[in-house]
């Protein structure tokens, strides 16, 4: 069980967000980790751990590309060599080819020009091929990263997604990946070229004049100290700005998705106010990051320029004293500039790396999240054969929050093929029973079994083939109506899709849509009402043809005749299948084999509806009420 011990709730008005002014409208989350993955924590050890993990992730992503990376670096070296050869050849041409030319011999000039052309073409080829390759490597890394994170998010439990929110998921896979793309786009180029020239120039400096080089070395403690300051400050800054942009995205996505409510309730000004606040917080945090690099980069420049001035003074003094040649000083000064200029580029690279690392930390945090409902290491197959689908709840206890249990020690045996209706007041735990059977969550104690197999031992694919849950939230994915029905069984033929729609009574309205079954549900003309969406969801479940069907308030938006049609269709479907039906309408309940009245997580009445109606219990009272309501 991965359920954690309860943590202390954060103090009021601060839910761990930057800027406490933001938090009051958001309300207080019931889970203190609502806004982050579990791996993200404020303690220094956790920060260090996550940072290590994100670097490990980066290494892991690059590992398959070691060989292409090596080739790319070789090409880059070739390009740099060719680029340096160019000016040298020009000077060579002027020095050596002009006198013979004066003498009427164009041979040396032609030779130099030829060599120059070769260098230019080499540079062209090497540069082009290097850039193409590095783009390919970078894109492959991004593709890998996107797929890893998306794939992992699919395995995480409903519970995780409920607290993490869709906006944050979107933010991880868009904005965070974008900031890694920035590093990938131009990073390697700068790093290799700059490192190369710094190293080679350092060697030349040492070789030219040792005491002057020693003066240059004095710069290093300062460079180191400045870089360490920048590393710490920028890590913090970028971490904040990643979180701030996530809040912008969360608000943006949610408020536009609910735009009808926003407009109907004139929420626009307040939304704008909130948006401006989160947007400004994002502006502030990114500005902070940009200002750090705006300080760091000129800081490096100061160190470089001061060193140049020192070398100039000290070197001049040495020349005056006769310890060094003038030519050496001149060369030293020239190379010194070549030494510090790439430092600027390195500082840029370091900045991109810091920003990408902050994003990688967020992604590593998500990847580190353990699925709350893990796949079994060695799955057990369901016993084969027709007419299966026996469900057993054995001493099941469960609560969404540790301190508020919903179910305590629930025992329930549903024989294969039985249709069971669950009724009871709101919050009694009906939907929880449904979710446990669909394994959206695992019980805190006890077991849920299907045909004698603990759900935790079933592979996800097998479980989903056997158990299908239809709820009020009937999500239709982008795509055609047919594709949405086929979601129930991806290999179904068009005829099977239509048959399912017909069986459930959805065919007529689908056929009347602008493009029939091919109508895109999210496009113009494809607007479906809540009732129509429920019908599509039913057709989907019908097509999926599971052993156990769970219906949680699945017919609430249907009109009476359609509901009846659905019920009639279900009668056929459910005859040899196990079904768990949660419905508020007694017309649905009455058709069940057995009714369970649930209150406070316990079964308080259990029996066939006709029998319960006569016993004078809660069901009988409800039944009477319902009869009376039928005008």
């Amino acid at each position, binding site marked *: 069980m991965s359920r954690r011990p309860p943590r202390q709730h954060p103090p009021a008005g601060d839910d761990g967000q930057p800027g406490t002014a933001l938090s009051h409208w958001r*309300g207080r989350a*019931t889970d203190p980790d609502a806004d982050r993955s579990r791996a993200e924590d404020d303690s220094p050890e956790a920060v260090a751990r996550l940072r290590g993990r994100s670097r490990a992730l980066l290494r892991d992503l690059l590992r398959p590309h070691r060989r292409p990376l090596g080739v790319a670096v070789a090409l880059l070296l070739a390009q740099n060599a060719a680029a340096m050869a160019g000016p040298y050849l020009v*000077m060579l*041409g*002027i020095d050596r080819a*002009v006198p013979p030319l*004066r003498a009427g011999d164009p041979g040396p000039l032609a030779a*130099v020009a030829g060599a*120059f052309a070769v260098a230019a073409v080499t540079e062209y080829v090497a*540069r082009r091929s290097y*850039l*193409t390759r590095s783009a*390919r490597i970078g894109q492959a890394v991004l593709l890998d990263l996107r797929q890893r994170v998306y794939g992992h998010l699919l395995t995480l439990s409903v519970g995780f997604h409920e607290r993490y929110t869709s906006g944050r998921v979107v933010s991880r896979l*868009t904005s965070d990946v974008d900031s890694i793309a920035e590093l990938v786009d131009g990073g390697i180029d700068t790093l290799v070229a700059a490192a190369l020239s710094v190293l080679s120039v350092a060697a030349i400096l040492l070789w030219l004049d040792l005491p002057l080089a020693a003066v240059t070395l004095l710069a290093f403690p300062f460079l180191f100290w400045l870089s360490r300051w920048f590393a710490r400050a920028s890590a913090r800054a970028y971490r904040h700005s990643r979180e701030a942009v996530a809040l912008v995205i969360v608000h*943006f*996505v949610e408020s*536009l998705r609910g*735009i009808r409510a*926003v*407009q*109907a309730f004139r929420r*626009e000004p*307040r939304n704008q106010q909130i948006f401006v606040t989160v947007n400004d917080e994002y502006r502030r945090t*990114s500005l902070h990051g*940009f200002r750090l690099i705006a300080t760091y980069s*000129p800081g490096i420049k*100061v160190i470089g*320029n*001061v060193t*140049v*001035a020192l070398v100039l*003074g000290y070197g*001049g003094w040495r020349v*005056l004293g006769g310890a060094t040649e003038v030519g050496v000083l001149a060369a030293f000064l020239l190379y010194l*500039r070549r030494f510090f200029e790439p430092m600027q580029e390195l500082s840029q690279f370091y900045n991109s790396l810091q920003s990408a690392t902050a994003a990688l930390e967020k992604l590593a945090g998500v990847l580190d999240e353990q699925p709350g409902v893990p796949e079994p290491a060695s799955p057990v197959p369901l016993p084969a054969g027709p007419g299966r689908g026996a469900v057993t709840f054995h001493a099941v206890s469960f609560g969404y929050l540790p301190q508020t249990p919903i179910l305590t020690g629930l025992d329930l045996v549903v024989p294969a093929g039985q249709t069971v209706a669950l009724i*009871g007041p709101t919050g009694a735990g009906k939907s929880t029973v449904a979710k446990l059977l*669909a394994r959206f969550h695992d019980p805190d104690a006890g077991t849920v079994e299907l045909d004698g197999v603990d759900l935790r031992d079933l592979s996800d*694919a097998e479980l*989903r083939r056997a158990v299908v*849950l*239809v709820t009020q939230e009937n*999500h239709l994915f*982008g795509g055609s109506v047919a594709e949405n029905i086929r*979601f129930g069984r991806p290999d179904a033929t068009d005829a099977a899709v239509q048959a399912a729609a017909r069986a459930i009574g959805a065919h007529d309205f689908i056929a009347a849509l*602008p493009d029939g079954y091919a109508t895109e549900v999210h*496009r*113009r*003309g494809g607007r479906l009402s*809540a009732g129509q969406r429920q*019908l599509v969801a039913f057709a989907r479940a019908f097509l999926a043809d599971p052993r156990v069907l769970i219906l949680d308030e699945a017919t*609430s938006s249907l009109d*009476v005749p359609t509901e009846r049609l659905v*019920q*009639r269709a*279900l009668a056929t479907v459910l005859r040899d299948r196990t079904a768990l039906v949660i419905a*508020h309408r007694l*017309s649905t309940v009455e*058709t069940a*084999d057995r009714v369970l009245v649930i209150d406070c997580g316990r079964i308080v009445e259990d029996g066939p509806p006709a029998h319960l109606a006569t016993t004078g219990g809660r069901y009988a009272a409800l039944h009477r009420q319902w009869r009376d*309501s039928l005008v």
Partner: protein
Amino acid sequence: MPAQRDGDPAIPRADGRVSPLRNLWRLRRYLRPYAAAYVLLLLAALAATGAGLAVPLVAQRVVDGPIARHDPAGLLRLGGLALLLGLVEAVLIFIRRWSQSSSSVGMEATIRADLYAHLQRLPAGFHDRWQSGQLLSRAISDLSVLRRFLSFGLLFLVLNVVTYVAVVVLLLRLHGPLGLLVAASAVPLFLISRRFGRHYHTASRRMQDQQGDVATLVEETAQGLRTMKAYGRGPELADRFARRARALHDTGVGKGALLARASALFDLVPNLTLGATLVGGATLVARGTLTIGELVAFVSLQLMLIWPVQSLGWIIANGQEAATAADRIHEVLDTPPSIVDAPDAVALTRPAVRGRLRFEGVSFRYPGSAEPVLREIELTVEPGETLALVGATGCGKSTLLSLVPRLYDVTGGRITLDGHDLRGVRLDALRRLVGVAFEEPTLFSMSVWENLTLGCPDATGDEVRAALALAQADFAYDLPWGLATRVGEQGLSLSGGQRQRLALARAVLGRPALLVLDDPLSALDVQTEALVEAALRRVLRDTTALLVVHRPSTVALADRVALLDGGRITAVGRHSELLATVPAYRAVLAAEPSPAPGLVRS
């Protein structure tokens, strides 16, 4: 999968006829507040370049002057000058970067806030068509592309062009014919730039659209997570994602290849020009029309052109990305909100409203679809009356309701409130008068309080308590933090019935003159339904209300019932009348379930 952009023909796409940079140029209004800062940073950048160039000159002086003359004081003086220049350069760079960061980040934030404000003004019809991932990628990714262009691309474009022109002018003065040769190299550079720019423009637009597609799928996945889990369709979604991410990858690789080709050419052209200068210059020197010193000076100066030309590749790439990002942003900003206040709109106030709602020959067609949903609706709801709307699934009941708060505008006829055409009433006044509960209760991941007071931010605790009591939603006080508890996104941590009751409480809060409730009790259990019904009956006594209902039990709330069939109102009257006289009504609302063989055992 094709980029599902918008498909709205009303929006003109940037094509060959308009300048691809037009939309980028239009964003200059956001630059205006930072104009002074921009001039400053440009000057600082130029001065820093100058200071940077001066340091080696000073070094040269040191070698030629004090050292040659053995003058330690002069050495100290010039060394001090070098130090000063170096510090000045660093300070200037600091000034440039500092003001650059505040202006570019400030502009990004302003455009984003404007974009959001505009999106909030655009009607539901717009949001039906646009996928939120496409909107999001505009608000986040595209804007950061713009920010990068404003903070680096634009600056270096200016700096490099200035450097290029200055150096070429110097070269021309140094030696006319050779200078012309170098100046002529601008022609191939221009041709390469144009070609590269055009191709990159297309690729960058495709990439941004595909980023939107990826964002859309991600958001949709998070939204439909339960459905995905319920059917175990992770592998299919992963495939779908892989296809989109792969498309994005392919475009990225293609873009990389384009950039690689152009960058390499931008390297080759100055090199070849240098080669030509060498051959030409050497020949001239051989003929005696040029001295070696002049040639050396010419070549050294020409070497200064390499970096500005080389950097053209990424500057153009950056500029094109910014241009397509600006196009995409303007596609949204250029869509005029179709539902706005008329110039002479009146502000009706609550006390002045009696609440007579009339549909006069109302027709409605969703934009882009051929078939009208509603045809010639004639319907009157008298002040204080409750009218129930009944009809088969998908017959247009919810659409009819959404016309009242003007989430959509009628496409024919008109709707009047106390004789005022709704389009002549100020939107905020109208929406203040109308309380709405949708078929799907929309909740946001905010506190319960904030969710309840969407429409009345200044509601008092007592008003909220009364509304919650009416909707039988007192459970809200028992949540872990009471009304301050954050309800999960879409309120998923609450049961369907709880969400519906919160939505109902929200609709009745602030005592609207007109209640528009879409199937307000569908998700309630029988007991709660009876309690809510009783409370609702009290509110409905003196409020004009239009309800959509599916169940016979809820019809009892209404004074009269209207039957909607095939987009028309086919019958209006009392429930019992219609039940007795209209077979179609009986079919839709017959209370008795017809026996379904094999299921009914009672």
